[in-house]
């Protein structure tokens, strides 16, 4: 973690090593800590060798989908004569997730270094960093870092005398959650409404401004310099669970734990250990009820699933959810899950881009039904209706926002059915109605 608390011995500190170290923010401070060595080393390698190294490291996308990063880079066409673009997805808006914010606040040059290496590897001369509009401090820090990097020759027309041009442009978002979806982000950068695009064509064929584009998450790109410095084998060795999940993962823990914050753990660390040891467990007298492990868009886990879950891509899937962006929302037994699920669906109803019918109408309708249940006016058939709507909203739209709204509803009804029934049967008094 590093900030605001010192790191826990159970953490594997790679990306978060300098969290809280204000001196690491400057170019000089970063270089003193070994920064930009990886970029210099990378520039001496061929792009293919870098891609191969990242492939071998087993690094997977940290934004949520977990797609192998090296493989993604290898999709970029070679010798096509077109400009290529790298987009760094810093539009961290997933409820419960706040890891990229810390990376940008404390180690902006680490991210820039990763961007430069990735841009070089995919044949791009320009990288856009799309920063969430509400991130005022990260924006200020990143903007300063870009200026410093240009002044020091780490970015610009001739990066460290290599003859390579790498430009970084910071693009500030305007507050739409959906712009964190990679194709919506490309539209947004182009100055259009942030609506997700249909795939195909995939970004590697026709992305930003219609040319081959790679989009990577802040955490993914920040991990790249470490892989270049310390080698793929080292990174691959950071694995306690399934060998397909390697490296470290920043987990943003929030909710009913004693010490919320960002925890960097080796892939495969038990979730139980994270919550009950590193985070200090529940508040006194409380027990764990549920966890949403991957940002609000994934299914809810119950205490039994948390108990046996390993924190890697496969481990969380095996326990009925997804690692996602690893924004972990921990809820104890004081939580009204029906209310929590209603709040989540209201978020998605507010953020739906309004393109696809199922999402535009379904998210709003779902939240209205849940509000009605909370107000004590639910009907016995409402649970079946919610499940049917969720079915109609899943796997049928351009992006997965609609699926994300359905996931907590379905898992909530499956795993916490009693809480819904309590409202429907009048055993629980109308709570929070109209909130």
């Amino acid at each position: 973690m590093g900030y605001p608390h010192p790191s826990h011995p159970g953490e594997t500190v790679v990306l978060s090593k300098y969290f809280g170290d204000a001196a690491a923010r400057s170019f000089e401070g970063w270089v003193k800590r070994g920064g930009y060595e990886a970029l210099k080393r990378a520039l001496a390698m061929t792009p293919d060798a870098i891609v191969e190294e990242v492939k071998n490291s087993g690094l997977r996308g940290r934004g949520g989908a977990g797609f192998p990063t090296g493989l993604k880079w290898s999709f970029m066409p070679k010798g096509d004569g077109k400009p290529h673009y790298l987009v760094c997805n810093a539009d961290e808006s997933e409820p419960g997730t706040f890891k990229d914010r810390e990376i940008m606040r404390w180690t902006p040059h680490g991210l820039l270094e990763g961007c430069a290496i990735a841009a070089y590897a995919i044949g791009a001369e320009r990288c856009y960093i799309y920063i969430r509009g509400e991130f005022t401090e990260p924006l200020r820090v990143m903007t300063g870092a870009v200026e410093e990097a240009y002044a020091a020759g780490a970015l610009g027309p001739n990066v460290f005398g290599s003859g390579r041009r790498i430009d970084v442009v910071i693009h500030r978002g305007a507050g739409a959650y959906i712009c964190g979806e990679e194709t919506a982000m490309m539209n947004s950068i182009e100055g259009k409404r942030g609506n997700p695009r249909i795939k195909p064509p995939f970004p590697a064929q026709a992305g930003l401004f219609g040319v081959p584009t790679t989009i990577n998450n802040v955490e993914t790109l920040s991990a790249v310099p470490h892989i270049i410095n310390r080698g793929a084998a080292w990174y691959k060795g950071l694995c306690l669970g399934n060998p397909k999940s390697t490296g470290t993962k920043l987990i943003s823990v929030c909710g009913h734990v004693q010490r919320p914050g960002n925890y960097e753990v080796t892939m495969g660390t038990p979730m139980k250990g994270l919550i009950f040891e590193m985070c200090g467990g529940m508040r006194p007298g409380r027990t764990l009820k549920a966890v949403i492990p991957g940002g609000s868009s994934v299914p809810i886990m119950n205490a039994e699933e948390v108990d046996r879950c390993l924190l890697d891509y496969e481990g969380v899937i095996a326990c009925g959810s997804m690692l996602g962006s690893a924004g972990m929302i921990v809820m104890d037994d004081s939580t009204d899950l029906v209310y929590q699920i209603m709040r989540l669906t209201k978020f998605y109803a507010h953020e739906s881009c309004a393109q696809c019918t199922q999402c535009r109408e379904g998210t709003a309708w779902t939240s209205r039904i849940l509000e009605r249940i909370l107000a004590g006016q639910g009907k016995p058939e409402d649970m079946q209706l919610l499940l049917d709507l969720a079915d109609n909203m899943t796997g049928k739209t351009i992006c997965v926002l609609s699926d994300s709204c359905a996931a907590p509803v379905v898992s909530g009804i499956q795993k916490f059915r009693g809480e819904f029934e309590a409202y429907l049967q009048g055993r629980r008094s109308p709570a929070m109605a109209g909130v």
Partner: protein
Amino acid sequence: MSQDLVNVTIDGLQVSVPKGTMLIEAAKQAGVLVPHYCYHPSLPSPAVCRMCLVEVEKAPKLLPACVTAVADGQVVHVDSPAAKKAREGVLEFLLINHPLDCPICDQSGECELQDYTFQEGRPGTRYSEYAKRYNPVEDFGPDVLYVPNRCILCTRCVRFMDDVAGTPVLCVAERGDRAFIGIDPDHLLEHPWAGNVVDLCPVGSLISKDFLHKARVWDLDKTASICTGCSQGCNVTVDTRDNTVVRLRPRANLDVNRHFICDTGRMNYRWMNRGDRIEAPLVREAGRHLATDWDAALDRFAGLVRKGGKAVLLASAGASTESLGLLKGLLREFDLTAVVQVPAGEEAPLRGVPNLALRRERAPNGDGAALLGYGSDWERAIQAAGHADLVVVVNVELTGAEAAVIASARAVVVLGTIESQQLPQAELVAPITSVAEESGTFVNRDRRVQRYLQARTAAGMARPAWWVAAETQALVAPAAGVPATSAQAFDLLAETVPGLGGLSYATLGLTGRIAGAAEAAAAGAPR
């Protein structure tokens, strides 16, 4: 020309379609309509309505037929339980915020939401407890009203203005179920082709002020016709209610106007309902025009034709090819000057469709006249008319000066639709039918010969001008084979007029053929 063909099976029917065809179009060829809202063959596909989701074997989930290209050996199910459930879901979602105001909605009867809901929607609602989204009606421009409550956000209108008209004044505003179509308040739908958004709208959200509450569409008779506004020759449908033309709509012809017409053409129909029509033949007796029957009128005309000499034929370029052809044939023994009048106006192109514009030449059959040997030097023809033995004026409005020049001709015959006092000395005023009241052909600026059909009954005793010519001809020189229909009149021309050879109403169909194409094909020459 070899094209890569791909075989697909759609609902058990096999079709071969060119590689790259989208499933929705391939299904059309198999005779299967995939229900859809946002897809339109003349617009880019955003795949947002999600209505056209179909089941493709071996695909992990349902695929939108509008943006999924065919693949060889693909097996597609439009009518499968999964696809039907998805459509039922979309219909339900669309209807939760859609008012059930069909009884007062102009779209009712030609509404795709209504149609598909009847076809496969849920019989009841599960959304009964909540108020529907409400936004007041907005004025979107000269002829368009926006009723946001009915809007299903298919974005056809937005894409038309963005990608086809090239004037992006519409947008989707807001997010989630609060979304609606927004408009640039400084630039309403003033584009000369903006009225098409009314036709494109699959529901009653964008409606025409001109047609507002005018008629229920199921009461309308629909007739295939050609717009008379300019030389483009856009294909239109004339909608009539009880013999009154109530609106014009574009009729699809991918080679001429795709799915669009301009607003000028759209509004160019009120004259078809004019009441001040010439309803009976008028012959000049003792300085006055007296109504008579056709026998007497044709006798008078034949008498003038028999005299011979110098003749001037002044015709509107809005007259049919048949009329222009047979009238010129009637006067063939004369020393004849035949011209058509082509009014001029502002050109207004539709940027997104090549070779489509409201044309400067504001007449539908200028090229038909040219094909028949008509000239266009109107001024000289008027001067010649001053000392002609016979002047025949066909449905043109003359200026006072022109009428004064013509007054000194030896004899004048007027074939007209509207009562006029301009040529009191005319020997004969014969009532002819308007475009809406006859069938015939026009030749557009690309030499495409196109048919139009009769949409309403003729006023009084009015007859097509070709009929007047043919019957008069029969009196002048009796012969067999006097044409009784416009089709026969066209066949007569096809025998003699270069360019029309090999064409007939049957081969023209309702989308037309290029003049000369059939002759070239018959001669085996590459065109």
